[in-house]
């Protein structure tokens, strides 16, 4: 039994975000982090590993420095990393990305007892599409928004969180589960893990590795293979300055209430 986890290195959108004059993101000036929801997927995998002793393999697609992120995951307890990297894969939208990651996972080999875990969505695009689309490309059942996962033999019981409650779903392995932050609290790297992680293996899969896979075709990967195109990107205008009211006493709040009343807001 193996657990695959898909992870993405993303710009930290909670920090300072720089935008180029042409409206695109200045990625070079931003800190990168491991996508937060993906950390919940990693933790879910490691929790299962603690219990069952199975192997955990992390997959990421990105530029070569993304290997650093795989090392950090290994310092948490992940056994192996797969770095999917090639110029041909650049510019992929969610459809093309899932196609490539699905091909990589398939090349590694999915067995009947295996589980694929993904974060619900990445904070750069917030699409939540890649997990389900990988599942579709691999013809595997999926359960998204997992807030609890229990394993009994080859059956997983997943608490799928909805806006107004939850549903409990049973699914057989192999399957795809996407994880949300309510699922768990990701662990830290540990010191022993840190001193071991550079001894573990990172497999690099390039275009050459994957090009003969049925899912990989120049017309379905990369910028040219992506069904969607970006027409334009832009920053929203800053709203004009409001009115700062002087003081924090009753006269100030009276003044505010007066304005709201005059505008028929209250």
């Amino acid at each position, binding site marked *: 039994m193996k657990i695959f986890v898909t992870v993405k290195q993303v710009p930290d959108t909670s920090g300072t975000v720089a935008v180029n004059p042409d409206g695109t993101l200045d990625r070079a000036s931003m800190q990168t982090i491991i996508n937060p929801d993906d950390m919940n997927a990693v933790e879910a995998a490691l929790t299962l590993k603690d219990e069952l002793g199975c192997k955990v393999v992390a997959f990421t697609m990105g530029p070569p420095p993304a290997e650093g992120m795989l090392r950090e995951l290994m310092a948490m307890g992940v056994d192996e990393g797969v770095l999917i990297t090639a110029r041909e894969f650049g510019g992929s939208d969610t459809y093309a990305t899932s196609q490539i990651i699905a091909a990589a996972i398939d090349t590694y080999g999915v067995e009947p007892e295996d589980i694929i875990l993904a974060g619900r969505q990445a904070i750069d695009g917030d699409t939540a599409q890649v997990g389900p689309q990988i599942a579709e490309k691999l013809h595997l059942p999926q359960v998204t928004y997992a807030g609890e996962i229990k394993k009994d033999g080859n059956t997983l019981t997943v608490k799928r969180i909805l806006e107004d409650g939850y549903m409990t779903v049973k699914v057989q392995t192999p399957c795809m589960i996407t994880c949300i932050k309510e699922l768990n609290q990701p662990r830290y790297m*540990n*010191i022993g893990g840190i001193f071991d992680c550079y001894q573990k293996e990172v497999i690099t899969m390039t275009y050459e590795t994957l090009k003969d896979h049925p899912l990989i075709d120049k017309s379905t990967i990369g910028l040219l293979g992506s069904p969607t195109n970006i027409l334009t990107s832009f920053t929203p205008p800053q709203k004009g300055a409001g009115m700062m009211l002087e003081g924090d006493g009753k006269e100030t709040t009276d003044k505010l209430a007066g304005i709201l009343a005059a505008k028929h807001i209250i």
Partner: protein
Amino acid sequence: MDFRLTKEQLLVRKMVREFAENEVKPIAAEIDEEERFPMETVEKMAKLGMMGIYFPKEYGGAGGDVLSYAITVEELAKVCGTTAVIVSAHTSLCCAPIFENGTEEQKRKYLPDLLSGRKIGAFGLTEPNAGTDASGQQTTAVLVGDHYVLNGSKCFITNGSVADTFVVFAMTDAKLGNRGISAFIVEKGFPGFSQGKHEKKMGIRGSSTCDLIFEDCIVPKENLLGKEGAGFKIAMATLDGGRIGIAAQALGIGEGAIDEAIKYTKERVQFKKRISSFQNTQFQLADMHTRMQAAQFLVYNAALKKQAHERCSMEAAMAKLFAAEAASDVTRRAVQLFGGYGYTREYPVERMMRDAKITEIYEGTSEVQRMVIAANLGVK
């Protein structure tokens, strides 16, 4: 000297920083206020390998290096001086002397529990009448059959009331002076051993500091650490390592105060300007950072020497002397930059200032460090 950190050391810093931010900082003010030992934090650190960083995995350690240990203490101290000294005293003053002087049986018996953090360690050298003059030991150990009988008391013992395992020094032959001192591994449950009252302190108030009392305390003969009479040497070598930990603690406290001061001065507005825009603020912070950066070089240098098993008495003394005095100065200046708010407990800088002071005192006062440095220079 090359201060570029290895990939592993960079990850250690990243991991401990996250841990400190999320797990340590939120309770730092509370444990100070309540003088409460943060056992929950120790349990978390234990799971992450932080209680046995630079010891081999075969004894339950994390397999790391001394610089990673210094970085860990530094990062913890940035947000909480108490938590930093718990790790430092446990590691440098208990795990290290057992690892460096213990027999294979002693190492197998004591290290796995200590290095995995299941048990906490402490060090008993200081006595009411043997502080800076450690050679004035009044605790005695007499060999009776297959055990030693210890009598006397120790004071100001860090981790004292929470520790399970102690490295304790006692006079086995008073006639021989320093050469009559021996080291013992004492367990909490040994007959005749008790822990005394909790000291109320100015700073590092969450750490446990208490007396150790030996009343006909029975210590098995096999718990003699090193040879009889080797105690003073063991104590001094242990303190060399311990000083690196305390220097790292001082370094972190100072850096933490600078972080807080930068944040605050960029927010605080006076005379319709952020106070960070005043040149006094800028110059103060520039000086503060420069001092702590210099301290960091000294601390890391001492850690690298120890890692390389080179003699590091003078390097450790210089690191501790400089880092401790810099931390006291920097935290005091940070309080000044905060003004009245800095004097209140709403902000952490007053706590940092209180915490910094102890680093000039324990594990050898600044005066002792100067003695060590001067002696190493051959100045008599």
